[in-house]
């Protein structure tokens, strides 16, 4: 008789806590006077991780522990780097992380009743478009992209939440219909969202959503010809934007040779490359680099800072962690109890994949840089909450899948 047994990942969590605590102790002794707040910060983070892991695994037996562990490790890594750069940033981020954990639990609970999302689908669809449209009118511009909105003194980046909404919209429309006629609202939605994002100059998010939509569409319908058509349309759009928008041309020119415009537009990417080169394979050692030389060091460019201080080997490890996360995410999708949940889980996985790929490849100059955050690691309230929501959705589906399988096992035993 087969018994359901979930392997505990507590050992891995312990190792992560060791890593995190030793890093914060190192940070605490940075100056000749002991920095108690670093130790306190490390202790708070440990408490949060332990509480989160113990309570979640106690409540949800079928939680995918490894997804949670990887996310925790990435968040811890991000917080270490942020604390090392500026303590105040890390304190803000840990609050956002707490809120993100709540959002994750809410998502897990909602995924027990996935029909709620299906009924509210039109609302989500219109809400996302409305949000982006509102951004055009009241948004504020940061780094040349009009993608921030200020509510009650807090800045939000609605495109992060539009990503999450997109996952549900895609899954809903692709669950039922398998031909183009049935999904015209979806096509309209994707087109509208991408167009709005391009107008707001949030190219990273536009590429992300267009790519996710295309991949999920291909997976759900299996239609190679339509996917290639979509890909061609996307490439045509990208090519057109290259000729229409100045900033796209500038991005490509910088990508080709960042050193030519070092003192101007190429500064960021050149600094990032020098940071990676200075770190070498083994890194300069935590606190021994100069991360502040790179613009956007705590958001988009955090990967370069990790490479500088922890070394390129660590960079490769981070990439490997994302890969494991993605594989686990895809497994969750494969074990999902129904088609809607399968597509939802896969959509989340694709979002994380593309987002981490686009920004890491941009930083290391494999592709032109588009400014998006590194999921779980980068500083940013909206970013981490959205990432935690995606994790929550994945966990929700994993729990459902596990419970269904366990029920079938019980029925067999009868």
């Amino acid at each position: 008789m087969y018994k359901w047994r979930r392997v505990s990942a507590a050992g891995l969590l312990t190792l992560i806590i060791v890593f995190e605590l030793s890093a914060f102790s190192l940070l605490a002794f940075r100056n000749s006077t002991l920095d108690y707040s670093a130790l306190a910060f490390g202790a708070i983070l440990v408490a949060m991780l332990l509480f989160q892991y113990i309570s979640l695994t106690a409540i949800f037996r079928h939680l995918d522990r490894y997804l949670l562990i990887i996310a925790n490790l990435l968040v811890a890594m991000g917080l270490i780097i942020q604390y090392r750069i500026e303590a105040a940033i890390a304190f803000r981020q840990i609050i956002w992380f707490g809120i993100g954990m709540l959002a994750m639990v809410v998502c897990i609970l909602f995924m027990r009743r996935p029909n709620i999302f299906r009924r509210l689908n039109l609302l989500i669809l219109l809400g996302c478009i409305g949000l982006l449209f509102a951004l055009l009118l009241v948004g504020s511009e940061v780094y040349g992209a009009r993608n921030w909105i200020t509510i009650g003194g807090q800045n939000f980046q609605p495109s992060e939440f539009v990503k999450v909404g997109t996952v549900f919209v895609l899954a809903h429309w692709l669950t039922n219909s398998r031909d183009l006629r049935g999904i015209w609202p979806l096509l309209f939605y994707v087109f509208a969202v991408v167009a709005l994002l391009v107008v707001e100059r949030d190219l990273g998010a536009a590429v992300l959503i267009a790519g996710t939509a295309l991949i999920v569409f291909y997976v759900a319908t299996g239609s190679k010809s339509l996917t290639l058509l979509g890909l061609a349309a996307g490439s045509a759009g990208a090519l057109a934007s290259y000729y229409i928008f100045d900033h796209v041309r500038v991005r490509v020119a910088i990508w080709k040779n960042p050193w030519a415009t070092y003192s101007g537009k190429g500064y960021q990417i050149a600094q990032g490359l020098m940071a990676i080169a200075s770190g070498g394979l083994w890194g300069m050692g935590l606190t021994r680099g100069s991360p502040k030389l790179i613009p956007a060091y705590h958001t988009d460019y955090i990967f370069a800072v990790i490479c500088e201080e922890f070394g390129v080997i660590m960079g490769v490890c981070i990439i490997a962690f994302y890969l494991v996360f993605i594989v686990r995410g895809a497994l969750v999708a494969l074990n999902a109890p129904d088609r809607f949940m399968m597509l939802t889980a896969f959509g989340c996985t694709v979002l994380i994949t593309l987002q981490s790929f686009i920004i890491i490849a941009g930083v290391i100059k494999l592709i032109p840089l588009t400014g998006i955050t590194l999921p779980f690691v980068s500083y940013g309230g909206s970013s981490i909450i959205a990432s935690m929501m995606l994790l929550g959705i994945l966990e929700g589906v994993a729990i459902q899948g596990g419970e269904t399988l366990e029920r079938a096992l019980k029925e067999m035993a009868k």
Partner: protein
Amino acid sequence: MYANAYDIVASSMRYFFLLLIIYILLRLVQHSFSEFRAVQQIKKKVRSVSPGYLEALLPEEFLGRRFPLGRENTIGRSKRCNISIPLPSLAPTHAFIYEKKGGLYISDYGSRQGVLLNDERIGRHEEFLYTEDKLQFGGFICVLHLSGEEEDDV
């Protein structure tokens, strides 16, 4: 003096960090893989007993009745079929549902009415089945539920 000593500690710690992270990564991959195998085994076990069942929707008199599926099933009017549905709109042997490479497939046995999968007629070739797929054989309509992948209808 203090700054230099700290510098040395910081630069030696990087090896510790790297080793730790690589160890975590390897353990993670190893755990993850063994868990994946365990789940696969459970799924295989569940499937080996029965891939699932068909739940009738139409006509009215069959509504809600469940027809358990084996590894190979014939569906038709004839008594000799594994799943025998005495309706005149079905051919004596209407369709095949069978397991292959861990998945469930359907193919038409050459009936005049044909087989509709999610309201679309399947052609001459086999089609892969998902849980929740709607199947129609003549006047008989049913939904497929795969083991271990039932929708939570609590």
